[in-house]
C-alpha cells in the first residue's frame, strides 16, 4: 500500500528510519490536499450547473452563514492543521535531536564538493561511508558559502553554514548507495555538487574503516603539504575564472567537456592523462602549474605543442587562482582517501 503510494507520488525509496516516519504523514497530508482540492473543485462545478443563471437579471435569495457554519469553516481545517503540526513537529524534534550513541561524521561543504571526515578515521571526498542500522550524527559546516546537505532517500536535509556547525542525524536501514545533493544555491556549479552515501553492513563497515586507518599516516603527510594559508577558495575561483578569460586560456580550452585546441578544463583536475610519450600522469596542482610555465614539458597525447608559456605573464597568486579555478571544474567523480584533513574542534 505505502509502496504503491510512494510510487504514485514519485517518492524515492525510503532508506532511513526517519523516511519511514515522514512518509506516513506525507501520504496523509498530500492525500487530504488532493481530496480537498478536488472536493472544492467538484462542489463548485456541481453548483455551476445546479444554479446556472436562467434569467438575465435573476434575483437571488439573501443567504448568510449561521454561526454554526462559520464555526465549522474554522474548526475543521484547524483540527487537521494542528494535528499535522503536532505529528510533524514531533518528528522534527526527533530528527534534530541525535541519540547519545550516535557516531559522528563531519561534513564540510565547499564550492563545489563535499568532504567527509571521521573523528579518528579517514577523510573522504564526495563519498561517505556509514554503517547500516546505526545512528549517525552529521556535523555539517561549510568553508565558503551556504550549502545544504540533502539525501532524498533518507528524507533529511540540513544547511551548511560557513564557520559553524549544524547537526542532523539518521539511521540508514538498507545497505546501498544513495545520492547526496546540494540544495542551497551556492554558485556556478551548485547543480554539480553531488556526492554519495555508501551504506555498508556493519561488518563491512568495520573492515572498511580498518583499511582506511592503515593508510592514514600517508594522508597526514599529504595534508601537511597542502598550502595551509590559502585565501578563501570562493574568491580565488572567481578570480581564476576571470583570468582564464583575460589570459586567453579559454580560446583553446573549453570548460564544457568538449575538446578544442587544448584539452577541456572540465574534470581535468585529478584526471589521469595519457601523454604522447606513452606515460600516464595525474593532473594535480604541480602539473597544472608546470603546464602553464613550461607547456612543452609534457604533451598530452593527441594535441599539438602550441600552448604558449605563461612564464612571467602570470603572477604567483594569479597562477594559484587559475589552478583553483581548474580544480573547481572537477567533475563529481568518486574519490577516496587522501584529502586535506580539516582540523576540527570536537564538539559535544
Amino acid at each position, binding site marked *: 500500500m505505502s509502496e504503491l503510494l510512494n510510487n504514485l507520488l514519485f517518492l524515492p525509496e525510503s532508506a532511513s528510519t526517519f523516511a519511514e516516519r515522514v512518509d506516513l504523514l506525507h501520504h496523509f497530508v498530500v492525500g487530504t490536499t488532493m481530496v480537498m482540492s478536488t472536493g472544492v473543485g467538484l462542489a463548485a462545478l456541481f453548483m455551476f450547473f445546479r444554479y446556472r443563471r436562467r434569467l438575465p437579471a435573476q434575483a437571488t435569495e439573501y443567504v448568510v452563514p449561521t454561526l454554526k457554519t462559520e464555526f465549522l469553516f474554522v474548526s475543521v481545517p484547524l483540527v487537521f492543521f494542528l494535528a499535522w503540526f503536532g505529528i510533524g513537529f514531533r518528528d522534527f524534534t526527533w530528527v534534530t535531536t541525535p541519540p547519545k550513541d550516535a557516531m559522528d561524521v563531519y561534513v564540510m561543504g565547499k564550492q563545489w564538493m563535499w568532504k567527509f571526515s571521521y573523528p579518528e578515521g579517514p577523510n573522504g571526498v564526495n563519498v561517505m561511508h556509514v554503517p547500516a542500522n546505526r545512528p549517525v550524527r552529521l556535523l555539517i559546516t561549510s568553508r565558503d558559502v551556504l550549502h545544504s546537505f540533502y539525501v532524498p532517500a533518507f528524507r533529511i536535509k540540513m544547511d551548511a553554514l560557513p564557520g559553524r556547525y549544524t547537526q542532523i542525524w539518521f539511521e540508514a536501514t538498507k545497505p546501498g548507495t544513495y545520492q547526496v545533493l546540494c540544495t542551497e544555491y551556492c554558485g556556478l556549479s551548485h547543480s554539480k555538487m553531488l556526492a554519495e552515501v555508501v551504506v555498508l553492513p556493519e561488518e563491512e563497515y568495520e573492515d572498511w574503516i580498518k583499511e582506511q586507518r592503515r593508510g592514514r599516516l600517508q594522508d597526514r603527510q599529504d595534508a601537511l603539504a597542502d598550502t*595551509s594559508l590559502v585565501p578563501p577558495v570562493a574568491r580565488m575561483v572567481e578570480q581564476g575564472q576571470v583570468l582564464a578569460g583575460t589570459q586567453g586560456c579559454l580560446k583553446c580550452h573549453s570548460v564544457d567537456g568538449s575538446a578544442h585546441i587544448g584539452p577541456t578544463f572540465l574534470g581535468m583536475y585529478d584526471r589521469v592523462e595519457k601523454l604522447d610519450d606513452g606515460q600516464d600522469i595525474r593532473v594535480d596542482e604541480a602539473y597544472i602549474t608546470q603546464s602553464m610555465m613550461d607547456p612543452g614539458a609534457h604533451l598530452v597525447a593527441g594535441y599539438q605543442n602550441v600552448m604558449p608559456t605563461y612564464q612571467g605573464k602570470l603572477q604567483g597568486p594569479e597562477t594559484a587562482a587559475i589552478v583553483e579555478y581548474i580544480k573547481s571544474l572537477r567533475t563529481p567523480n568518486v574519490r577516496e582517501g587522501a584529502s586535506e584533513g580539516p582540523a576540527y574542534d570536537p564538539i559535544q
Partner: protein
Amino acid sequence: MAIANESHQEEKNMNEHHGAGRYWLIWGVLLVLTVVTVVTGRMHLPSFGLLLAIVIATVKGTLVTLYFMHLAEHQGVNRLIFAVSIVFVILALVIPMADLGTRFRGANPPGSQYSDLQPPDIGTGAQRGRFGGGIRSTDLKDSPPPAPSH
C-alpha cells in the same frame, strides 16, 4: 457618517490650545531623564544596566510621542498605527533572539556567548581562518595581534 465624526473630533482636539508651558515641562523631564540614564549607565550595573537604560528610553520616547507629537490628542487610527508598528518591532526582535538562544550551540557564531567554538580572527583585515575564516585553526591561536590593515 463615521468619517465626518472622526475628522471632526480630531480637529477639535488639535485646536484645543494649551500654553507652551507644557512643552517646556516635558523638555525638563526629558533632560532629567537623560542625566539619570547617563549616571546609571556610568555605573555599569552588571545585570540590569541595559534594561534600565531601555526602560528610561522608553519613558522618554513615550513622552515625546504623546506630547511633542500630540499622539495624546490624536484619534484612534493614529494610535493604532503607532502601537502596531511597535508591536512588530518587538516581535521582530524577540523571535530571532529566541532563535539564537535556543539553537544548537555549534550553529551560533564562534566565540559568542552561545557557542563552544573558538572565536574567529578579529581585525586581521584578511580572512585568515581556514574554514571560511570562521574557525581559527590551531596554528593561528597564539599568533600576535595582527597589524592594522591600512
